[in-house]
Each structure stands twice: as C-alpha cells, then as structure tokens.
C-alpha cells in the first residue's frame, strides 16, 4: 500500500503529460466532429462516410492505431520535411483524436436526427436564418447529447492515452508498462489508479456540464468548464517546467533495457546533463527513433539490426557482423555506433541441468538427436523469427511439441516440466538463478546479439557526451548484466531499474 502511494506521488509529470495529451486530442476531436456532424446532417452521403470511417477506426486496436501513425508520419516527411516528428506527442495526438471522433460524431448526428420536426419548422417559420437556427435552436437542443458524446470520448481517450507510451509519448502508461515488465505490481497499480482517477474526475466534471445543459443551469456549465480548463492549465504549467534540452534515452519494454537506459542516464547526469527516459518504445520503433533524432541514445543488439534493418539472413560471424553494422549506420543513417557494451543478449536454447545430463545433451547436435521426444517452449514471437528457421535448418530440429509462452512464464514452464527446452536469452538473470544449462551452438546457426550503444546523428556531435559514455564500452560482462536483470526481475528484494543500474555501475568502476 505504502509502495503504491510513493509511486503515485512520483507520477506528477506523467499525469501532466497525460492530461495535456488527452485534452488536446479531445479538443481536436470536438473541433473536427462538430462541423462534420452538421455537414453529415445535411448530406446522407457525408453522414455514411463519416460515421463509417469513424466506426472503422474504433475497430482498430488502439495499440495498433498508435503504432500505425509512425510509418504514416514517416512517409509524410516527404511532404512536410525532416522536421516532422514521427514519435511522441504528434502521432499520439492524431491517433487519439481519431479515436475520440466516433462518440462525438454519432451523438451529434443522433441529436440532430431526433430533433422535433415541429420545432425546426417553427424555427424556419419565425424567420431564422440558417445560422440563427443553428445557434438559437439546434445547438442548445443538441448540447446535452453532444456533451454525453464528449464525455464518452474523454473517458476512452484518457484510457487509450496510456498506450501512447509505446510510441514514445510520456503518459500514465509509463509506470504501467514498466511495472508489467519488471513485475513491479505497486508501480502498475499506481499507474492504473492515476489514470482511472483522472478518467473519473473528468467524467464527473463533464457530467456536471452535461447536467447544466440539460437543466439549463448556466452556472453549472460554466463552473464545469472553468474547472476543466484550470486542470488543463495546471498541467500545461507543470509541463513547462520540463527541460527541452534534456538528453532523451529510449528503452524497449524489458528489464535489461530499463537498467541500461538508467546506467547511461546516470553517467550523463553526473556529467551535468539533464536526462529524460522514453521507456517502453516498441522494438520496431527504437531504431527509427534514434536515427531520426526523436531520441538521442538507445541500446540495441547486432542480430536485431542485422535482420530488421539490413534485412540480412546470413551469419558472417560476431565481429564481421558488428563492423558491417557500424559502417552501414554511418553510411545510411548517420547514426553513431559508439561501441559494444561487452555482453550478448542472444537467443539460446536452455535446459534444466539435471534433465540435460539425464538425456546426455550438451550441444544443439545432441538436442537434435532427442528432439522428437521433447517439448520446446518459445516466447510469443520466437517461432516466427528467422533465428528459429536458421536453427531448425542447421540442425534438422524436429520437436515432438512446440509451445508458446510470455517470456516471464517460459522459465516457470521449464521449471514445472511443461517444456523440456526453451528459447532463453543469454543475459537473462534467470538463466543463472534457475541453474540452467545453455546449449552450445557448434554450427554457429544463431547470430550474435552484442549489445551496442546507438547515438543519434545530432547527439554524436557532442564530444563531451561521447566521452562520458566511452567508459561503458566493453565494460559489462554477461554475468554482471544477468545479475542486474535478476535484481529487477526477481520477486523478493526487488530493485528498481535505477537501483540496479547503480549497482551495475559499481562493478564497472571497480573491476
């Protein structure tokens, strides 16, 4: 309970960013939906297209909608120039605005359809112009319905805004995503409570405005509007306090990335830099974010870039792969590969030691021999990755059974005997903690996954920054990384990523 309170208290800047994002999306949604609804009311074709489109948008999962704006904005750079942001506030705003459209549009159109024909005829007959009719009759009569639509849109938007964390926009989703990855439930709960609380307060305020319209109590309408605006202004004021010049460090949504981002951030802070973290960036988004300068620094892995960016499927060997990558980044994206951190986070096949000994398995070749009698467990994407196909090919692997788990439960499955072998990650703390045997790969089928530091083209010009980070290169052993990861992942005596990073830093400074 106390943990949740402490976490809640630290969410001020996330809350401010969340409020501003949701308010902007809602405002933009209103500005678009209201005239569109008036137009739709005068033209059945417009009505069909507008309602059809906004209903279609609703069927796209919010997470996907947010992610889709990244490539859309990227392609729009051809029109608007390289300055167009592809991550963060802009794509989140656009996606959430689309999301907010439907309830406002539908309620406004319905309000107009339901309007008493006699009242509308009277409005014409007493000599109202079109504008007077809209202003004096249609708008006031539709207002309660429109407010109800805005209310629904507000609640949806505030909920969906938590997902904007995945495209690099600070929000109350940050603690939720980070907490889920590191199994820090107090953090998850704090994020959920804050966002649900915000939704409830907003709903109550907008509900008061709606009732004000219904009962024609002007003071209630104005009180509601004033309070809502005050909240938005307070958030804007709080936001102004954040530093524009801060170095932004990105992280993919898993513990190792959180820890390394803190490790880098702490060094920079010691060197006098202001630092911000963008946690939980989608894995596909991180590389583009750093090359485009949306973020300044990220940690990525050779094998990932090799397949996803260079689109290569061959395996030239660990060092050759790294050297080609450095050259490729310099030539095509202008991004600096500062260096390798010293450990790999590769896919590897792991078994319980006693089970492996019992079956006489030490290498992948041994595994291939026994595979037909065994069950393999992989994470959700593993069996679709090129690495799996490469390994299957190289060793002629044919398992008796194939099962998919989330990465956290994969280790439990191995422990509980639901899988005999899993696709583990070499730097995962649980490999050592659970006493697992990592099978050798004598044919080199699995590419290497050296962790490396990417620096955006702009940040690469800052020699002090580079100097501050240089000591990290080659300084992190896989054992040290496993220990730090485990400190964050384990259920007892849990460390925050920042604490784990500080402990990791000590092993670097005092080798």
């Amino acid at each position, binding site marked *: 309970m106390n943990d949740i309170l402490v976490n809640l208290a630290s969410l001020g800047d996330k809350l401010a960013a969340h409020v501003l994002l949701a308010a902007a999306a809602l405002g933009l949604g209103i500005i678009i939906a209201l005239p569109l609804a008036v137009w739709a009311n005068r033209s059945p074709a417009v009505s069909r297209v507008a309602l059809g489109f906004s209903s279609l948008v609703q069927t796209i999962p919010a997470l996907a909608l947010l992610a889709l704006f990244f490539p859309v904005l990227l392609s729009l750079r051809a029109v608007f120039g390289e300055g167009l942001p592809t991550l963060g506030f802009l794509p989140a705003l656009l996606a959430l605005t689309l999301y907010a459209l439907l309830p406002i549009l539908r309620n406004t159109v319905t309000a107009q359809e339901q309007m008493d024909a006699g009242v509308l*005829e*009277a409005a014409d007959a007493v*000599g109202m112009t079109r504008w007077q009719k809209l202003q004096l009759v249609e708008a006031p009569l539709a207002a309660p319905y429109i407010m109800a639509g805005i209310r629904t849109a507000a609640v949806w938007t505030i909920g969906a805004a938590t997902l904007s964390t995945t495209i690099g926009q600070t929000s109350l989703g940050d603690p939720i995503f980070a907490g889920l990855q590191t199994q820090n439930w107090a953090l998850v709960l704090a994020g959920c409570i804050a966002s649900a609380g915000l939704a409830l307060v907003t709903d109550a305020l907008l509900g008061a405005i709606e009732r004000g319209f219904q009962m024609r109590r002007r003071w209630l309408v104005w009180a509601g509007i004033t309070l809502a605006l005050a909240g938005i202004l307070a958030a804007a004021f709080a936001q102004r306090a954040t530093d524009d010049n801060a170095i932004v460090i990105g992280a993919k949504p898993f513990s190792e990335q959180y820890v390394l981002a803190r490790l880098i951030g702490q060094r920079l802070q010691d060197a006098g830099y202001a630092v911000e973290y963008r946690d939980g960036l989608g894995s596909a988004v991180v590389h583009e974010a750093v090359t485009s300068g949306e973020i300044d620094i990220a940690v990525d892995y050779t094998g990932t870039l090799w397949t996803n960016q260079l689109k290569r499927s061959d395996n030239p060997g660990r060092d050759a792969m790294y050297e080609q990558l450095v050259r490729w980044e310099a030539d095509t994206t202008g991004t600096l590969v500062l260096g390798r951190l010293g450990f790999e986070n590769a896919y590897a096949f792991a078994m319980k030691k006693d089970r492996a000994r019992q079956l006489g398995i030490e290498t992948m070749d041994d595994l291939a021999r026994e595979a037909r009698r065994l069950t393999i467990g992989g994470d959700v994407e593993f069996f679709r990755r090129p690495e799996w196909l490469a390994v299957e090919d190289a060793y002629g692997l044919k398992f008796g059974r194939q099962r998919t788990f989330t990465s956290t439960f994969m280790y439990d499955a191995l422990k509980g005997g639901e899988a005999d072998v899993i696709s583990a990650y070499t730097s995962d703390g649980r490999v050592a903690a659970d006493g697992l045997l990592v099978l050798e790969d004598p044919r080199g089928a699995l590419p290497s996954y050296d962790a490396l530091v990417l620096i955006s083209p702009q940040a690469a010009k800052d020699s002090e920054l580079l100097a501050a980070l240089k000591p990290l290169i080659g300084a992190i052993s896989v054992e040290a990384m496993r220990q730090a990861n485990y400190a964050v992942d384990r259920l007892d005596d849990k460390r925050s990523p920042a604490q784990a990073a500080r402990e990791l830093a000590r092993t670097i400074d005092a080798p």
Partner: protein
Amino acid sequence: MDQPSHALLEFVNVRKAFASTVTEDSAVDVAVDGVSCGIAAGSFVALVGASGSGKSTLLKTVNRLGDPDSGQVLLAGDNVQDAAPAMLRRRIGYVFQGVGLFPHMNVADNIGIGPRLSGTRASDGRIAELLELVELDGSYAGRMPHELSGGQRQRIGVARALAGNPQLLLMDEPFGALDPLTRDGLGKRVRALHGQLNLTTMMVTHDMAEALLLADRILVMEKGRIVADETPRSLLKGAGGPIAQAMVAVPREQAAALAQMAQLDGPA
C-alpha cells in the same frame, strides 16, 4: 371570383409536385396543380379539403417553406420569391398544428423570438399585451413550454405569430390537436383578433364546420385544385358543386340529428 385589384395575396397558376414515394417508376405526385386565386386584404379565408389534397403545400408557398415548381405567389404585388426567406417570414404570422414552441426557451422568449431575430427586444409590457390577446395572464411569461397544456401552448403559438405585427396570418390546422371545447374557444378568439388587428387570415382545416363558422370565404381543394370558392352562406344554400356539398352535408346532418334528439327527449 377574381379580385386582383385589391388582393393582398395572389396565387398565379401555382404548381408543385413531389417525386412520388409510392410508385417507383419516376412518377410524380402533383400536390398543387395550377392554382390561381386572389385573397383580399382583411378577409378570413378557410382552405378546406380531404387529407392529401394539397392544402398545406399551397399554404407553404406563401412563406416559402416550400417554393412552387412554376407559377407565382404575389404578396402586396411583389413576388415572394424575390424576398429572402428569413426576411419574408418575419412579416408573416404562421401557426401550425405542431405548434413548435422552442422547448429551451420560456414563454416570453418564445413570443419575443421574431423581434429578437430582427435585432430588437419585445418589452415586458409588449409580452403581457400579446399574452392578453390570447387570453393568458402575464404570469405565464416565465413558464417553460412543457409546463403548459396543449391549448395554452397553441395560444402561445398564436401570440408568437402575432408578435411581429404581421398583416398576413397563415394557419395550418391550428386547432387540429385540441379538445373540442378548447378548439371552439381558441377559434373564436382568433376570429376576434382577425378583426381587432386588421389581419388577412388564411386557415387550412379539414373540418368544414369550423370553416363555415369562422371564415368569410371558403376554398375547397381536391387533388391539388380549387374545386369550389364560396361564402359560407352560399355553401349552405347548396352552391359549390358535389365535392363541397358532400363536405357540408356532414355537419348539417350532425346538427339535424342533434336537433331531432333534443326534440324527442323534450326539455330536461
């Protein structure tokens, strides 16, 4: 019965058709089929006919709630189509069965809407005066429409139509939804106002008895055409042709039947 010389309102070969919704084969439904007639200033004209005969369609060509396909409507000699609809309508009172009070405005604001649209404001005294015209006291000014009975609502409807001092009052089955007693009282009141305010009134009704009792000229419509144009007196004397006479027969037979019943039972 042409009276073009001192007609306030004149229909010249007015025709209007709607795309038929009943038959699919692009047939059209002729609602008003070449109507020509003049309405003298100061007259109270009833437009009577079966449902669907085109009465409302004809009436709405006057205040441009529905423009004719061909022909002209002249108001004081000017083609109404030359006027901006909103401006034209502010000069013409319009009362219809649905009343159409603005539910979010109180009685005073409903009555004062016409002046407000023209940029002036009806004073409290003026509102009280208009309420008095329709036999309601000033305390009604602050009420909301949903707090009124059907009869009171239509009284407000009439007051609203009169607020702009119109010369011409158009009414489309104004009392159609009211109970007989209320209907009778309000009918008489409107007829009195017609004289008091020097109005020219055109009232649509499907009730011949009402027309006979209130109007001084009755136009009978059938399938978009005017088939009879008579005074109540001449209609009662048998003029106007078979369609008009069939309509007159109904109240006449009812009256006769009632009189007979009264005679048979004797005085109570």
